């Protein structure tokens, strides 16, 4: 009613003046955060992209020339570097292995934790411990446990007679990536489990009861009711973990340093930037990593929106 009165009195006042006010207020509220993001995210990103188009080096940061896409597609450019592609391969392999293992294990743990039990609250808290330990600490811890001469893992396996000679868990090229995946799974499974548990607890109890009265077998209930209903939740968890895993640095750097066999994209970037002082080249690699992750995020968000719409429909 007031709006129509307003319309009659002041025809110039746009319809939905309140809505416009709300939009303005929202922008004011968001402005500080946007400024901070631009300062700590946007500006460094733009500088990295700019450096990637120059021949800048660490020892003479201000003395550079613009060389266009030379760092990417030149004769010695990134796309021609076998080391880079090796790092990309390592990263993808690490991401694929660790995220799928974490998803499966996380789902299992979440299903167990979803069973009513007095231990549940305690277990839920205990579960978070690996996730709460800083990665550098847990990586160092595992490095010691996996040490080829003094590590407890080798000692136990030898004692049990499962292996005849100690294994070089982090030094053996065949084993190193596997060891890293193992530690990442140990660390990130709780995170997966908690996200999936949250999704599980959103499934209405009466759906289960209806299926129970109808005599639907448990496996069918899981496959046809539980899984479709928690799928959006699982997808969110998988996307979060994937984006995380693609940037993996600390775990690999602590456990195997600069070893070519396990080098991830982030480790490659650090090596070029710091060890070799090639700021331009390293920035090009960092920019590639950024665009890969950005592309994946956009695709994932599109897929998730579809999944959510289907779940909501």
């Amino acid at each position: 009613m007031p709006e129509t009165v307003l319309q009659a009195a002041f025809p110039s006042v746009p319809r939905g003046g309140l809505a416009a006010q709300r939009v303005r207020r929202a922008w004011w509220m968001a402005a500080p955060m946007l400024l901070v993001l631009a300062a700590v995210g946007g500006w460094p990103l733009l500088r990295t992209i700019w450096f990637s188009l120059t021949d800048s080096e660490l020892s003479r940061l201000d003395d550079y020339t613009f060389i266009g896409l030379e760092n990417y597609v030149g004769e010695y450019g990134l796309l021609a570097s076998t080391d880079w592609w090796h790092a990309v391969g390592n990263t993808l392999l690490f991401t694929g292995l660790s995220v799928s293992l974490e998803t499966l294990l996380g789902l299992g743990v979440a299903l167990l934790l979803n069973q009513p039990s007095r231990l549940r609250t305690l277990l839920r808290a205990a579960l978070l411990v690996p996730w709460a330990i800083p990665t550098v600490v847990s990586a160092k811890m595992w490095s010691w446990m996996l040490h080829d001469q003094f590590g407890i893992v080798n000692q136990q396996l030898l004692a049990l007679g499962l292996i005849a000679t100690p294994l070089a868990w982090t030094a053996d090229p065949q084993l190193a990536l596997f060891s890293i995946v193992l530690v990442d799974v140990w660390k990130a499974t709780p995170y997966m489990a908690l996200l999936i548990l949250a999704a599980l607890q959103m499934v209405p109890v009466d759906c289960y009861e209806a299926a129970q009265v109808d005599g639907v077998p448990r496996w069918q209930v899981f496959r046809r009711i539980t899984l479709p209903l928690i799928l959006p939740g699982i997808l969110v968890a998988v996307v979060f973990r994937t984006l995380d895993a693609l940037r993996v640095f600390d775990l690999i750097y602590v456990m195997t340093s600069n070893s070519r066999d396990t080098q991830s994209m982030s480790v490659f970037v650090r090596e070029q930037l710091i060890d070799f002082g090639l700021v331009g080249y390293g920035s090009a690699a960092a920019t590639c990593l950024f665009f890969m992750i950005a592309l994946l995020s956009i695709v994932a968000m599109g897929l998730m929106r579809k999944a959510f719409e289907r779940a909501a429909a």
Partner: protein
Amino acid sequence: MSRIELRGVSKSFASTPVLNGIDLHIEAGEFCVFVGPSGCGKSTLLRLLAGLEDVSAGEIEIDGVLVNDLPPARRNVAMVFQSYALYPHMSVYQNMSFGLQHRKLPAAEIEARIAEAVRILQLDGLLQRRPKELSGGQRQRVAIARAIVRQPKVFLFDEPLSNLDAALRVQTRLEIARLHRALGSASMVYVTHDQVEAMTLADRIVLLQPLAGRADALSVAQAGPPLELYHQPANRFVAGFIGSPAMNFIAATVKSLGDGMVVADVHGMVCEAQLSAQGLTPDEPVTLGIRPEHVLLGQGTQQARVCHVERLGELSHVYLDLPGSRAPLLAKSPRDDIAIDDLLPFELPAQVMHLFRADGVAQARSNAAAAGAADPAAAAST
């Protein structure tokens, strides 16, 4: 044919008793309604029948088979949930077929059953929709259809109408009554807190009362045909719950006792009740009860002032000030010309008066009165 028999059934959650001492049998094809105020355990009783909860004591038999330890799937019951419990990610068709798929039924049989349910509940054109795209009434019908295709021995309804608006509730109530006639042999057990639903649908009402922490109280306040509960409530709780607006209760003392007649004193006003005098003693404090529709206005020897009037169109609710009573006496009257502060003559006819002793138990109607006031078939009190 499916008879349900409950013997000494009790249920407590942790140390809180919810249901106590339930002995009940539900005949094959009977429409039995569990009704009661919130917290009386009626939904819990239904879930005990479904097998979604374990009994704490007692036995449940369906068709002569002890089902205490049988999982829900093997009891051959179908349940319609208060929230409908439709599978949100499945279409209407899938919602109906899902419960049948693992039963190794031929596809043609599943098709036929669904087609039949669709016809009965008029679901044509909705089969490919998801629950989100349906109105409340449509969801309710899908939930009922999902139960029908199972062809169970017993249908269990848990407050199926409570999420619908008033008009739709009346319509769906009619549909459920019709459905019960159409399905014939299947028993239906229906839970509601709404006594109108209970009165209109039930062959038999089981009125449950909250235990309120008393370990010795029984859950079933009265069980019987709707009119028996209306005309011959076994106790004050039943009398107050059945009937709308509720029965008037008036504190009184017994003045004298006759043959099939009790005379009581209400602050100097003399009231007669055609009830058995057995067990009563003069000067005993009692509670008189009379339904608003039985109070006669505009005649009789008593007089009272009108303190409030509600005009509903078809009739009026007239509130009378009684001497020495805080609660006014409510009377239904077809007249719409009664005004506040009018002084009206009224009468409390002796043949429709109820009388409750201090422990709430109703005084039995003397034989002469029972024949006139109550449903003859329901004359035997439970």
